[in-house]
């Protein structure tokens, strides 16, 4: 039986449909990623799963408990790491963890034991009695993970876990999450709009405008893109595109002052391309498919465009719903 099971879930905010009838399930021990641009419905889905929001329709179950009917049982089974830090910066690391332990009804002895155990897992035992105020962004994140795991949840939710972290801390975070998964039998549900990050997942659902448009293992999703992306700049891109179309029967899309050609075995195609083109080739590069290309293929947009352009209204609505959710 899957540990998270979602059927036909939807959420409406006035005129906006944030989540539009999604269904998916996550098996125990999996790292499951929700990939999509800002405002695609990722955070709304997490908020429903962790009982902060009621769905407008559909059903969500975690560890066999219904998120609407049995919220306390669901809450006891999950740990959460939110997008923004939810530590009390006026308290010490120990005090924050103690607060959490008592909220989850651990008795004093067990709480003390777990606090020490988790602090050493995230390598913060030396900072136990320091105020959070003096912690760096990476340390705060690590402490939040320690806190999220303190009550031994069966599912850990990570909402954009590495947002705002520098690349080095981000990769340390991932080492840590992978280590964690090896040691504990924990299911991880995460959202991200970083493609590179989603590649760490066992399985990904690509979400856009509140709908799941693809799901599967990263490798499987990448197969949706036919092959490698060749980016070629020539002295006459228009004519080159025409020649590639007729000579190789491949579509060439104009992009960044050059042409993007999608092909299998790109490294073998390049010499033939250069040889065949009648104009001068200025530069060639090849990229193996990434999830970004998958997203592009599925939606016709890159994930970052989307974040910047037409979703301002949606983002605002999300901020509002976010606030309401916190009430």
């Amino acid at each position: 039986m899957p540990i998270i099971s979602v059927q036909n879930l939807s959420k409406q905010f006035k005129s906006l449909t944030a989540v539009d009838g999604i269904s998916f399930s996550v098996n125990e021990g999996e790292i499951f990623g929700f990939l999509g641009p800002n405002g695609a419905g990722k955070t709304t889905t997490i908020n429903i799963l962790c009982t902060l929001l009621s769905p407008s329709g559909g059903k969500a179950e975690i560890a066999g408990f219904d998120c609407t009917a049995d919220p306390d049982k669901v809450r006891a089974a999950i740990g959460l790491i939110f997008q923004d830090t939810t530590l009390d910066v006026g308290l010490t690391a120990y005090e924050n963890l103690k607060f959490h332990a008592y909220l989850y009804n651990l008795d004093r002895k067990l709480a003390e034991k777990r606090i020490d155990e988790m602090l050493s897992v995230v390598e913060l035992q030396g900072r136990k009695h320091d105020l959070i105020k003096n912690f760096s962004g990476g340390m705060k994140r690590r402490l939040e993970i320690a806190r999220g795991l303190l009550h031994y949840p069966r599912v850990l939710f990570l909402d954009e876990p590495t947002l705002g972290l520098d690349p080095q801390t981000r990769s340390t975070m991932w080492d840590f999450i992978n280590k964690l998964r090896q040691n504990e039998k924990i299911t991880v549900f995460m959202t991200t709009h970083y493609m590179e990050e989603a590649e760490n997942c066992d399985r990904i659902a690509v979400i856009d405008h509140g709908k799941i448009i693809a799901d599967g293992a990263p490798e499987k999703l990448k197969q949706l893109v036919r092959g490698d992306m060749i980016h070629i700049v020539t002295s006459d891109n228009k004519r080159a595109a025409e020649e590639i179309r007729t000579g190789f029967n491949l579509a060439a899309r104009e992009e960044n002052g050059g042409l993007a050609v999608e092909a299998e075995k790109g490294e073998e195609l390049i010499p033939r391309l250069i040889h065949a083109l009648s104009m001068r080739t200025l530069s060639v590069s090849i990229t193996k498919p990434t999830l970004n290309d998958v997203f592009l293929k599925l939606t016709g947009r890159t994930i970052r465009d989307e974040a910047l352009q037409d979703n301002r209204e949606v983002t605002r609505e999300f901020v509002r719903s976010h606030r309401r959710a916190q009430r």
Partner: protein
Amino acid sequence: MIQWRPVYVICYREFIKFFRERSRLLGTIARPVLWLFVVGNGMASLIKPQTGFSYLQFIFPGMIGMTILFSSIFSSISIVWDREFGFMKEMLVAPISRLSIVIGKAISGTLISVAQAIIILLLIPFLGIHLTIMQFIEVVAVALLVSFCITSLGILIAARLTSFDGFNIIMNFLVMPMLFLSGAMYPVTSLPVVLRRMTLINPLTYGIDAFKHVLLRHSTPPLGPEFPLVQDIAIVTILSIIMLTLAALSFRKKD
């Protein structure tokens, strides 16, 4: 329905923060001290109460009420801070009832207010007021009740306040009028009818009236207490329960 370990740890956090943030402690104590020693002395030269006690003695019950008012409102407003800085989510996703959160905030806010009221009580020797041990205990008992009531009111407001911008509005349109229309600084019996009616729906009026019962025992209105003590206590208690229930209900609401 109420889980006590979470209630305990919510209080534990508030106490740590209260003692760590010295400026907050200083602020709530400085205000009544300023009133008592500066304004009180200034006014005393202007007003000569007829009934054999000084203006300072008259405003002392009101100053305890004022300390409690500000302290309790500040304590409960911490809920808005918690929301702004995301900490509220940590509590909302925990497997505890919303009532436990509200009770935890109410108990911690109440005890912190009473502690500050006691600090003000310790100024008594400097004011030429004599207080028996019994009176001291009675003041603390009334302070507990009044603090609980005002804290509950604060939590109810904080539960509905969505951002910190609303805080100034609350201060100017609720807290200050509550103070001015409570009989803390001057008798309210002879105010114009509209204002007089407002004093009657102000919970602080009954709280301060109860303090007057203990501290200005033998005086009569307009300076002394105007309602029976039983009525004061009954009204404050009933209001506390109503407001706390409403607060717990508005916490439970989700979209």
